[in-house]
């Protein structure tokens, strides 16, 4: 089975979810592009969008259509060549409409998982629940005569575990997209102990065709991305608990969030990132990773408490942010959750006090948005960190410790052989988390 044949009959499980919808979108376009090649004109391409909710599938199709229209508008120059032999398609309008139809025409939204019994390739993006994944893989494996390949989007469960428990004979690979898949460039690729070479090689070809960056990660719970993020998050939460001894919780969250965003020149603070991913999701990923870790306890009572209070973060179907540690209004975060009073306290009530306690940023500081897209960002960051070194304010001291801890996590991922190189660690943080620089650096020696 060659590349094209492998992509003729595909299913995405959990297609209406945040990750599944992105994988569906990218795969549908790749399949449509193949179907439009002259040599494939007689072949049929089918992509099942499988999800338990019919309502979610209806919403999914609206999302997919909007995204495909945008993608088509972007590649109209190429599409005119693709449809050069169609005399009836003259204007960009005509061509874009046709392309959108051709992509949508490949997708079959269904609520029955059994359609995967015919497929040769299965993307799995269901709930991060090892038992559920194993159950579904096993039943497909029993009923599908094609010896299908399984690409799981798990961000934390070891691939070898899934392979063994579902008896997949090495036809499984971790293909971990980042949220949202349509935008994020990074895909972590994780081989299990017995993953077959061809299953691995195809994934690299496919990821390359999607114009994404594949970074190999070894099969260790959490892989590189969550391996860094979960430890970094736990560190941030613990730092806030320390501060909470001398200030209120709300103030402590504000200070740590500010340090981990502005002082570290990151796109968002650590509490905002936890909210973005979802407080329950973070807690769950930690619980999946924790049994596999030696000498570490990856667990946070604070996350448990927030979950018990029903404050979960995460996102609405529209992509907008739900309230979590922080409250979100149009312009961004505006208040912080007080777990005792069970209410949000507006920034205005404590911001000035916190800012005074933290001290001011070095004059050479520039926001992430400016630094990230500057060709001379290395020089900017070097001079910023040189200035930061010389400052002994509370904010600067927290930032220096935070920075070095993040670096140590990166180093550990390499030492533990989760990452093949320090460079891979940096690539994951820069492309998957949009950091302006990788955690393993020499800015603070």
């Amino acid at each position, binding site marked *: 089975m060659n590349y094209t044949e492998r992509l003729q009959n595909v299913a995405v499980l959990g297609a209406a979810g945040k990750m599944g919808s992105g994988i569906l979108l990218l795969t549908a376009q790749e399949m449509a592009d193949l179907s439009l090649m002259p040599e494939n004109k007689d072949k049929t391409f089918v992509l099942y969008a499988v999800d338990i909710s019919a309502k979610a599938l209806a919403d999914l199709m609206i999302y997919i259509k909007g995204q495909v229209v945008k993608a088509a*508008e*972007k590649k*109209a*120059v*190429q*599409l*005119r060549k693709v449809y050069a032999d169609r*005399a009836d398609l*003259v*204007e*960009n*309008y005509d*061509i*874009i409409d046709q392309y959108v139809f051709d992509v949508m025409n490949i997708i079959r939204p269904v609520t029955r998982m059994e359609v995967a019994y015919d497929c040769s390739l299965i993307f799995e993006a269901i709930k991060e629940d090892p038992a559920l994944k194993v159950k579904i893989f096993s039943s497909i494996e029993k009923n599908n005569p094609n010896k299908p390949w399984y690409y799981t989007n798990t961000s934390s469960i070891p691939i070898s575990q899934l392979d063994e428990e579902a008896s997949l004979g090495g036809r499984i690979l971790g293909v971990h997209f980042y949220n949202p898949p349509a935008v994020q460039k990074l895909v972590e690729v994780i081989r299990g102990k017995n993953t077959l070479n061809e299953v691995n090689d195809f994934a690299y070809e496919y990821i390359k065709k999607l114009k994404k960056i594949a970074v190999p990660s070894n099969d260790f719970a959490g892989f590189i991305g969550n391996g860094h993020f979960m430890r970094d998050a736990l560190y941030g939460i613990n730092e806030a608990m320390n501060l909470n001894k001398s200030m209120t919780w709300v103030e402590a969250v504000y200070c740590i969030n500010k340090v981990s965003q502005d002082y570290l020149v990151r796109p968002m603070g650590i509490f905002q990132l936890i909210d973005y991913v979802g407080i329950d999701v973070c807690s769950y990923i930690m619980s999946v990773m924790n049994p596999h870790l030696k000498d570490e306890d990856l667990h946070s009572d604070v996350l448990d408490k927030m979950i018990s209070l029903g404050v979960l973060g995460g996102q609405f179907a529209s992509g907008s942010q739900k309230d979590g540690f922080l409250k979100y209004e149009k312009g961004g975060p505006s208040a912080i959750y007080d777990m005792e009073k069970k209410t949000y306290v507006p920034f205005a009530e404590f911001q000035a006090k916190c800012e005074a306690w933290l001290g001011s940023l070095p004059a050479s500081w520039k926001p992430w948005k400016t630094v990230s897209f500057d060709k001379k960002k290395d020089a900017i960051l070097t001079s910023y960190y040189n200035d930061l070194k010389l400052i002994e304010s509370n904010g600067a001291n927290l930032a220096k410790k935070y920075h070095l801890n993040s670096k140590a996590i990166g180093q550990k991922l390499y030492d533990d052989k989760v990452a093949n190189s320090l460079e891979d660690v940096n690539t994951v943080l820069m492309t998957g988390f949009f950091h302006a620089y990788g955690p393993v650096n020499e800015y603070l020696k």
Partner: protein
Amino acid sequence: MKLRKKVYMVAGYNTVSMGTGRKEFNPKKERPGLEQLMKEAGQAVLVQIGGAKNVDETVVGNFMAARFNRQAHLGAFAAYIDEGLRYKPSISVEGACGSGGLALASAIRSVLAETADVVLALGVEVQNTVKAIYGADILAGAGYYAMRKNGHAFYFPGEFSDRAGAYYEKYGREYTRKGMATWFKNAIENARLCPTAQEYENKVDDLISLGLTEPNPKGFTDHLNVFDCSKVSDGCSAIAVVSEEGLKRIGIPKSEAVEICSFAVAVDNLTEFPAEPTEMRCTEESVKQVLTDAGITKDHLGTVETHDCFTIAGVMAVEAIGFAVKGKGPEFIANGNTARSGSIPFNTTGGLVGWGHPTGATGVHQAVTLWEQLTGKAGAAQIEIKADKPYGLSVNMGGNDKTVVSIVYKKA
């Protein structure tokens, strides 16, 4: 056309050229439409000429409101501009991006025909109603529809990219692109002096490097980058076209007006590709006629507003008008001759690349700019008009050098 009677232009006005580049532009927010822009510009002229009661006729130049805005019949908006224009004559004219020039030609003819002494001439276009990729379809209407299928997604950039490619082939790529980048730099620097210009707030330091950005054939055209292109713009320009009697009626002294010395409208066959892609022959013919009819040569020109829908069109226009022989345009431009301080300043408020290109309005915008320059009303963008070079020339082009309206002006 040699004029059998004195015709003047006076009391011009330009709205802002709205689109990317302007701080206040947000594609998702509602903006003034055709009728609001026409009212703004029309009223601004009426205020200067003593009100609508003094107007005999209105002419509206517009290219594609029928598709950009799903609106035709623009002539009847005259009565929306001002109650005083109700029941008076008004027409709209179309000749692609030369529509504004045709509106002026039509107004001049009315005065010459003595059916009007005061004509309100407007040009208007509102293009930001659709994304650029669909706008390209609409603008492609300036070409021959039978050629559309084999054209580029961005049809006109594609056509002029082909011209640029041919020019590179014949005269050298690096040499030509240097001239084009200098054209871009002049356009932006001039636009920074004109508050209504779309690139008024452009703050880029190294404009030459930006202009020399390598074209990206996968996303755009083979031989042009986006900086080689004019802007996607919403805008309206208006000016009064009047007879000697008309001037008296509106009570404005001659010294505030420009005299129209000659005008020329020329067309070429829309169904043909350019016979020689490195030359704009219709422009050349139109300019030859207009200079002859005015009884002057290019050496009498103090400034030119030319239709630089693309930087390469600016290069070819410099040659078509006769300032450089074929193949020497890039050098002439790179040496600074067309800059505001050069031997013949071109497009002193930025032209189509810098000021903006609300297609149907552009011809009228050129006339307003020349009226301002020749009567000393150009503000920060004012250049010195020397006594031995008192004439201004505007060249307004529709499509790929298919309709060209040229006009010669001098201070009355």
